[in-house]
């Protein structure tokens, strides 16, 4: 009995000691040195793993940041949900300058609500925008508009977007949106765009992505951009932020000064802003008014 015990203890002991030696040698020889800064940087990041930076999760960005820090420049890397504060903290840790980032927000560029773009047919298939769009042009008949089946809502990890039950259009919650861009990728019709938040949250955008000619677009939706070009003319001469391409106006965010002069001239009301637009001005005094407009508006706020 005793010998049995002795032998088993001995065998196991030898196996254990042997394994310990092998493990020790392997651990020494194949040791991977991980930069401790990666963990520190990961701790500073929001931890949402949204992928908005283009890296696989927050740790992916941390690795990329540390790698870039070794080269001496991290200005190309950004964390959209974290914003400038997070990047400043990381830059301080790594002892480098962070790149300045313009705060962005997701903007839904479609005004085809149930009222403005009434349903012509009923869709009776799976509740997924991507599937519906592959099958047909949409319930309202607009081949560019929102189909309202909430692929963007499913894509958002911050719960920052929801479908308005009255209009059936997605609405972005400004407080929660981190501009990670997940909804932009999810939208099969590329309606959602990331645009700068703008000074004092003032931003103007064309609330339509329809490229059809005016008459065709208007048949399906009362608030479609018809490509008339009035907004292009209304835009102050020095600014020239609005371009017209394929019957669709587009406001360049780098040039736009958010004066809002284009809003009242739009015949269909396809231009939308986050502020109260200026009242339509009588014709005789356009030039002086245009120049002073942005300043007075800003001051008023």
């Amino acid at each position, binding site marked *: 009995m005793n010998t049995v015990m002795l032998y088993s203890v001995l065998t196991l002991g030898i196996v254990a000691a042997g394994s310990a030696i092998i493990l020790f040698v392997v651990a020494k020889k194949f040791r991977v040195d991980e930069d401790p800064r990666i963990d520190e940087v990961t701790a500073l990041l929001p931890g949402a793993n949204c992928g908005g930076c283009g890296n696989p999760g927050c740790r992916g960005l941390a690795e990329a940041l540390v790698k870039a820090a070794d080269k001496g420049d991290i200005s190309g890397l950004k964390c959209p949900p974290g914003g400038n504060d997070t990047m400043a903290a990381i830059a301080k840790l790594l002892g480098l300058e962070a790149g300045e980032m313009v705060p962005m927000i997701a903007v839904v560029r479609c005004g085809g609500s149930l009222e403005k773009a009434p349903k012509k047919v009923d869709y009776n298939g799976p509740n997924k925008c991507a*599937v519906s769009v592959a*099958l*047909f042009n949409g319930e309202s008949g607009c081949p560019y508009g929102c189909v309202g089946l909430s692929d963007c809502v499913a894509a958002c990890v911050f719960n920052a977007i929801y479908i308005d039950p009255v209009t059936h259009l997605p609405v972005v919650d400004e407080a929660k949106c981190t501009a990670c861009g997940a909804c932009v990728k999810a939208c099969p019709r590329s309606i959602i765009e990331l645009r700068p938040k703008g000074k004092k949250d003032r931003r103007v955008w064309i609330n339509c992505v329809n490229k*059809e000619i005016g008459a065709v677009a208007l048949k399906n939706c009362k608030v479609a951009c018809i490509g008339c070009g009035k907004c292009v003319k209304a835009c102050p001469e020095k600014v020239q932020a609005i371009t017209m391409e394929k019957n669709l106006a587009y406001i360049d965010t780098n040039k736009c000064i958010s004066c809002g002069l284009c809003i009242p001239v739009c015949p269909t009301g396809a231009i939308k802003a986050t502020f109260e637009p200026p009242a339509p001005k009588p014709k005789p005094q356009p030039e002086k008014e245009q120049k002073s407009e942005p300043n007075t508006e800003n001051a008023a706020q």
Partner: protein
Amino acid sequence: MKLKTFKIGGVHPPENKLSANVPIAPTGVPKQVSIPLSQHLGAPSDPVVEKGTAVKVGTLIARKGKAFISANIHSSVSGTVVKIDDVPDSSGYRKPAVIIKVEGDVWEDSIDRSPDLVKEIKSDRDAILQKIEDMGIVGLGGATFPSHIKYMVDDKRKADTLVINGVECEPYLTCDHRLMLERTEEIMVGIQIMMKAAKVDRAMIGIESNKPDAIQKMQECAKAYKGVEVVPLKVQYPQGAEKQLIKALLNREIPGGKLPLDVGVVINNVGTAFAIYEAIQKNKPMVERVVTITGKNLKKTGNFLTRIGSPATMLLEALGETLPEKTTKIINGGPMMGKAVNSLDIPITKGTCGFVLVDESEALRAEPDFCIRCAKCVGVCPIGLEPYRLEQLSNRQNYELCEAESITDCIECGSCSYTCPSCRPLLDYIRFGKANVMRIQRERRQK
């Protein structure tokens, strides 16, 4: 006698062949046609006419594109080209089309319009192939694959059998059935031409046993022709799919990603056989096709010989009916594989087999429930895929696994959605996943 059929999967939906006894009638000439530039599988054709060009019936209006798979398009009416503009197709998206205002009904002089049967085949094989290509013949079974490519057989890829598809397994549709009854001799001569083109001396015509009159007439007629055999088949959907039909007739299986020619078979629809007869013997391009219009709420149903490009509303006018009030869904094609359309104001193309008007009791889908893992969809899949799994993978956009599970082999027959007791939209997701996987594969090939 036990009838032949395919072995794996399949369903048997109610046949509802309401228009089976209605003879084919011409719809007449519309006031205006819009002929889409992309009505075949492959690249769109390039228009060779412009605004103001006068055309006759049979004038070439669009030449096949530079891509390998493409087809010519001919004018189906005589008149003047109004414009080349985008018109909504059956999906509602606007696609380029040639719009022609009709003036009279003048045909190209080269077309033989007499109803006489021309039996003697004068053209040699090269001339036949060239003519099939020139006349813009595409497969009329639904996929609209340009026919001339199918007959490109050589020493490396030889065919031994020509299979003619007279199955028409879709419920409601009867255009092929009527064609077999009324144009029997013409189809037989067409088959002789196709046999010559494919360099084969055996042809098999598969017809489902729910069309006894067509089987009998075709069998009687086939006696006079050497090497043609008419085979009655057990009624089972989707027997009209090429893989299933070849399995049923010849017991040969086409591996995934391969073509019928890889197992020595050339396969075409009876409608195509008739079109090839007209192209070779009568010099007539593909300007007309038989379209079924049917539905339980219609007082009359019909099979109409319609000019390509005429609006689908013409079919109702030809019936002398208006759209029934109860109609909730209009299906372009059969109820199993067809797609619902927004309106009947869409042009009839080479691939339009028919329209089915469905009322509320049958049109709406039930609310989908959870998958109960009954595996009925696996049982009925004629390819042997696992639809429930493909649906999940496609929904999660896991395209790598979709590809590994052979989603591209799906023939989109819809048997899985039809049989699902939880009413899950299996095929919708599989179609979506398949389109994405095919896009990824294309991009990979281009790299």
